[in-house]
């Protein structure tokens, strides 16, 4: 094996070159990230991220994030944000005073009337906190007192592609780094042989698409890209040896390759060669570590029971939640799950019922499981979509066929663990569930430029999540287009009221 021998004259030389190596690699990198690159050169450094001593802006409350992204825009009125008034005034036109002059999508902007649509689901209160849950969320209701609801999230975009891009990268324009890549750039990794940022998506969901840019690294180096883990076949693209190359053959070949590269290094004195040598070793390690972490066969039966029957089916949300927990245990910093299918323009009742069947139990299981393992306190779970849905019906109002259009003005996101105030709800909407309201229910008109207490813009949420990870969002920057660019652009306000 070609582990580094510090006495090897080549490696002694390499020790000297590390400064140069980092000096160059980190050229133009913000001070925080630079600090995180310096401490040691373990194998993990070939992701050029650090392990161990990271310079945080403040003491982190969460060490990792599991982000359960619900793509398509879940209807807050049918899940958490209980609005009995809608049922009472079922079918009546949304009052113009409530609607205001806000833009609508081209799908419903031309409707002759905007009939209010009450939820088809029963709601009840749960836990000490008395949080409201729709009847389709029985498992999650069990966790009521672990959850921190934000009922007043708002966003800029009104259609899926721009909105999900904005939520995940802080900009509606393509080409910006994703949230996870910012975190792995800023904080590095806490494991030796897995990427810092892993992406999982439920299979066979259809509906609104996902795009490589959502976990891309944009103008950050591609080493910060999220690594997509797949179900079936190679968990990571190109992970397995080709058919006809056995483990010992590959090992022998890698040893010779290491010799060739070391020989090359002696000629060139280029530290990039050292980095390449190390990468091949990490790649080799990943060939074991990735299958190890994705092989869930040794999980006990009661764990599968906790996550529900789907947990046995690779690629389901349930299976991905369990895998996320395993990745979290291995120290993966940012685990991004996607679950598509929340775009209920029609057939809402059946649609939401199915979505909750997919996600309710596994989400609750993940919280319970982490709690059981003592990991909930430093693992931040985030649940939410790219926008909410309208309180009026899109198209004609039918009992089963009705649906809701996109609604960026207010929607619900919840968090759990990782330093957020458990068993609380922050922010509220008006009685129509159409606008963010103050504590007395009066309509507010928050903007992203000025923080309004009780309202949480996407950039505020991003700033808050980074803060929980120990990062000041105004300091996590990268020079782009001539300025120190950040995830929250020039916006974002940390919502201290959400902190435990």
């Amino acid at each position, binding site marked *: 094996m070609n582990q580094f021998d510090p006495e090897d004259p080549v490696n002694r030389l390499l020790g000297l070159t590390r400064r*140069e190596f980092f000096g*160059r690699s980190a050229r133009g990198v913000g001070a925080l990230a630079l600090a995180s690159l310096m401490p040691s050169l373990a194998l993990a450094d*070939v*992701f050029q991220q650090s392990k161990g001593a990271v310079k945080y802006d403040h003491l982190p409350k969460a060490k990792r994030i599991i982000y359960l992204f619900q793509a398509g825009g879940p209807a807050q009125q049918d899940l958490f944000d209980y609005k009995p008034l809608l049922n009472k005034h079922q079918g009546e036109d949304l009052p113009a005073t409530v609607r205001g002059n806000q*833009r609508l999508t*081209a*799908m419903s902007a*031309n*409707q*002759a*009337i905007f009939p209010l649509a009450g939820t088809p689901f029963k709601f009840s209160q749960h836990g000490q906190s008395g949080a409201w849950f729709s009847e389709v969320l029985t498992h999650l209701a069990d966790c009521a007192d672990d959850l921190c609801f934000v009922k007043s999230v708002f966003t800029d975009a*009104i*259609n899926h*592609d721009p909105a999900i891009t904005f939520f995940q990268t802080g900009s509606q*324009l*393509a*080409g910006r780094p994703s949230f996870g890549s910012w975190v792995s750039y800023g904080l590095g990794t806490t494991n030796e042989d897995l990427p810092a940022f892993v992406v999982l998506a439920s299979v066979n969901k259809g*509906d609104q*698409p*996902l*795009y*490589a*840019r959502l976990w891309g690294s944009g103008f*950050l*180096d*591609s*080493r910060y*890209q999220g690594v997509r883990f*797949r179900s079936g076949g*190679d968990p990571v*693209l*190109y992970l397995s*040896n*080709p*058919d*006809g190359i*056995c483990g*010992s*053959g590959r090992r*022998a*070949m890698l040893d*010779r*390759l290491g010799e*060739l590269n070391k*020989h*090359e290094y002696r*000629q*060139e*004195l*280029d530290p*990039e060669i050292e980095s390449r040598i190390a*990468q*091949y070793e990490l*790649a080799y390690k990943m*060939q074991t570590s990735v299958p190890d972490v994705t092989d869930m066969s040794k999980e006990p039966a009661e764990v599968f029971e906790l996550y529900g029957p789907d947990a046995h089916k690779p690629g389901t949300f349930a299976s991905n939640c369990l895998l996320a927990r395993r990745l979290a245990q291995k120290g993966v910093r940012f685990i991004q799950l996607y679950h598509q299918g929340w775009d209920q323009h029609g057939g809402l009742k059946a649609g939401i019922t199915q979505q909750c069947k997919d996600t309710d139990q596994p989400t609750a299981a993940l919280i319970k499981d982490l709690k059981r393992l003592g990991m909930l306190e430093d693992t931040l779970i985030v649940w939410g979509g790219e926008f909410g849905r309208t309180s009026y019906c*899109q198209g*004609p109002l039918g009992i089963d066929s009705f649906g809701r259009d996109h609604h960026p003005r207010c929607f619900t996101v919840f968090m759990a663990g990782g330093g957020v105030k458990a068993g609380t709800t922050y922010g509220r909407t008006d009685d129509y569930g159409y606008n963010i309201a103050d504590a007395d229910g009066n309509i507010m008109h928050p903007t992203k430029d000025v923080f309004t207490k009780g309202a949480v813009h996407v950039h505020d949420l991003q700033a808050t999540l980074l803060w929980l990870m120990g990062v000041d969002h105004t300091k996590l920057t990268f020079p782009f*287009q*001539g*300025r120190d660019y950040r995830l929250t652009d020039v916006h974002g306000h940390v919502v201290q009221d959400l902190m435990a």
Partner: protein
Amino acid sequence: MTLDRRRSKLVFVLASVSWVIGALVWPAQSIAHGTTTDTTPPKKVNFSRDILPVLSDKCFKCHGPDSESRMAGMRLDRADGAFANRSGKFPIVPGKPEHSMVVQRITSKDAPMPPPDSGKTLSQAQIKLLIEWIREGAEYDKLWSFEPLPKTIPIPQVKGAWPRNDIDRFVLARLQKEKLSPSPAASKPRWLRRVTLDLTGLPPTEKEISDFQKDDSPAAYETVVDRLLASPHFGERAAVDWLDAARYSDSYGYQSDLIMPVWPYRDWVIKAFNQNLPYDRFLTDQLAGDLLPNPTRDERIATAFNRLHRQSNEGGSIALEFKTAYAADRVDTFGTAVLGLTVGCARCHDHKFDPITQREYYQLFGYFNSIDEYGLLLSTEIVPSPSMLLPTPDQEAKLRDLHSACGAADDKLTQDRAAAEPAFESWLKSRPLTSTIPDVVAHFGFDKLDKDHFQNDLPGPAFGEKLGSVDTVTHKSRKAVSLDGDNGLAIRGLPAKERSDSFTWSFLVDDTRRDPTAEVLLHRTGGTDVGFCGFDLLLEDGHLTARVMRAWPGNAVAIRTNGQIPKGAWSHIAWSWDGSGRAKGLKLYIDGHLAESTVLEDSLWKKINAYGDLGDSRGDWTFSQRFRDKGFKGGEIADVAFATRALSPIEVAQLADGHSLTDALASHTPIQPLKEYFESAIDPKIRADRALVKSAQLALADGEEPVYEMPIMQETKKPVPAYLLARGNYDSPRNAQTLVRRDVPKALPPLECVGPNNRLALAKWVTRPDNPLTARVAVNRFWQMMFGTGLVETTENFGIQGSRPSHKELLDYLALRFIKSGWNVKALVKTIALSATYRQDSGRNPKLKDADPSNRLLARGPSFRLSAEMIRDTALSAAGLLYDKLGGAPVNPYQPAGIWQENNTMSPPFVQSKGPDLFRRSIYSTWKRTTPVPTMLLFDATSREACVVRRPMTNTPLQALALLNDVQYVEAARVLAELVLKREHSDQARIDLAFERLAGRKADPAEMAILMQTLKEQREIYAKTPDDAARLLKSGSTPPDASLSPVEIAAMTVTVQTILNSDAVIWRR
């Protein structure tokens, strides 16, 4: 240094001569040569170099060009702001730091600047510099890159034989100043591989290597460079960088990420580089090819540059939002790719650092929004307008025939009409006295209901159907339907419609609301909620608009009535279409009279009906309803009739008043309308002629249908106004106050346009020799292509926050020569390639490692990892698999199954190419924006979603996995293994050959020993596991050579993989 002085001198002379020989002509020496440059550093603090970056970084955010974020109204980016009298205090007093407020604040303990909460601090050195600058007089001047290029640039006089051309003199002068010396020249094979990869993206062949080795002539290097520049692969190599900048892609990006048909643009770029199109022409064609006099096909293809941005087809999208985003993307791309400026920063507010105001941003925007586009996308088949057809020569001939058939049919109709007098006269004599209107196949009074269906008064399959709940009210003796904007009325069972089918609609309408726009009647042949094609009739504030569309607005015919129908009263309207494909074939009648109309659009090609899964080719027409769109709120409709012919005016009048035709027949006057009636309705000969016109039109549309069509840029007849959009929002007020006039930023030379102020004027401005940016930016990018890093490291930003050039005089010198050479790209590249600077060995030595780790001083040759494309192309080329066909439709090489659709079921499926198309150069792979080819992305290729002029260069373990395990590379290794097994007979010779084909040189003894060992080990392994060997042979689609031993192939395959994965191959040094 081991240079043979005599030889190097000779080479130098010839290299100098090469400036003026061959096709690659640089201008004769007109630049001052031989004056001594002062190599000692200037004593004075240099504003642009020393002060501006500090002010910009630390102060301009609050005290810079952006008026909105300016604090205390104080600006330090201009002398007038900095020297201003502020109630007896002065931010800066030239020569008197002690009286300058700025100095007090930056040295203050109590109220320091920058303020602590800004997160910015000034170092002691920076504070000293600022004070020194003020003491010296606080001279403000422009940023270096905004300064015009000097008229002459003295070339440093340096001693020694090292320089081969002027580049080297600049480089050497700087090195000497730093007490460094250049590195020795790279070995011949190393230089050859370097230059071959840089100029063609491919490794040198064995023959090229040996030819060069054998060539001892002084011109050997130049021979190589000339050969490479003449190779068609030069265009492919150079195009890659520009395609990144132009954000060229084969898919539209956004939601469904449909395939975008634009590859002829990619081929145009390749051709432009191969033909050495002067760079000013290269830019002009792309920016304004459509505005050149009588633009050629190529010049119009080039304009696709401004259509390569992403386009959305997501339902619910607001067209104006996206049209605004597209124009902004064009401005940003123009800014970055051409000017090297972050113009886009001024979209929402004045630029924080560079002298570009928000108003100036929208003045530039005004050049790029003047395009007749819809803003959203329907489907791959329906190319968003404006677009152009690119017929093959065969298709062109066929289209010519079809056009002349249309002309012949028109002529025959005209002739027969002229000759119809006798037939008309005789018909007139025997005319029936009761009026008949042939070809009316449906008539609805909405009082006959069969279940839910309205019954047709006439025999035939047509019927009416309510969409939603529809009320009827009594109208005269029959009924009218009332519409609320959401409900509607479908007329089903009418014949399906293509653009060549004629028809007339006649009905009564009451517009009770008079909305800005209402959809009255629609025959949708394709599209979704995002847009549609087909026939429709709109009421726009009382004006009737009739449209026949494939891709609105550019590929459509449409007219609008000049007059309005009354609000809140019944009118009779009729709409006819004769199937001719031209605007004159559309007619609108109000109350029985032909309405005066204005032509909105008059160019239609291809068919309008049935596209993929979007097609709705049934014969349905709907009143007041379009999927998720506005209907005809408050409208009432009665007495609906439909005919399968464009009725004559008197027939329309009869439908409107019930007597015009009857009266005319009875009285036999007026004659002309009766004649038109006869020709349209009665005369079998003329009816047959009209059928012929329609079938000729249909044949033409059928002939056009398979012709390749791509989006291009085309200026609207009247400029589309541009407005300053507050905060960059598309829905900001557009009014007289926000209206802006097209212009260029004032910090740059004035536009001075003669003729129309349009994109052509902008192109002329940008390529004028006195534009300080264009040439510098271009030269820098070509330098980056060959050195990995530009002379200005921030290729994308020549603004204040960009990096300063490492060799400013050299950059200016090259830029000046570039312009004087007639923007000769190949000559520029050749000069760089033949320089001693480029020829240096890239190996480091301990001194350089510390003195200049990133090689900004150029004391060694450039080394960097091969690009994503080069790595794959090298593997294919070495294996002999590369199919080096130039250009054409994109191909789909190996990639893991299903990844286009795994998270995007709206995406078209990935279908892997077959045969040689699996082995095309990577530039021809389908670039899919939301799911780029994984191995390309892993090696830092861009997704092409936005303009990028500098790729990052990373090393990750995922790259290792791809090179080790991706079938592409396994197959290439195996095929190369078979090749060497057949060609050579000893292990050593085989390894040597493989090594040379991949790494461009022979393995040295140490490498050979390692590889011999590899082969031996692998042979032992596979001898024990022959099944594994057999399985490895199945990699890829190329069948293994049955005459070779599977164990031998397998062992050699792994050996070749070892080489392929080694630094010697993946890096170019």
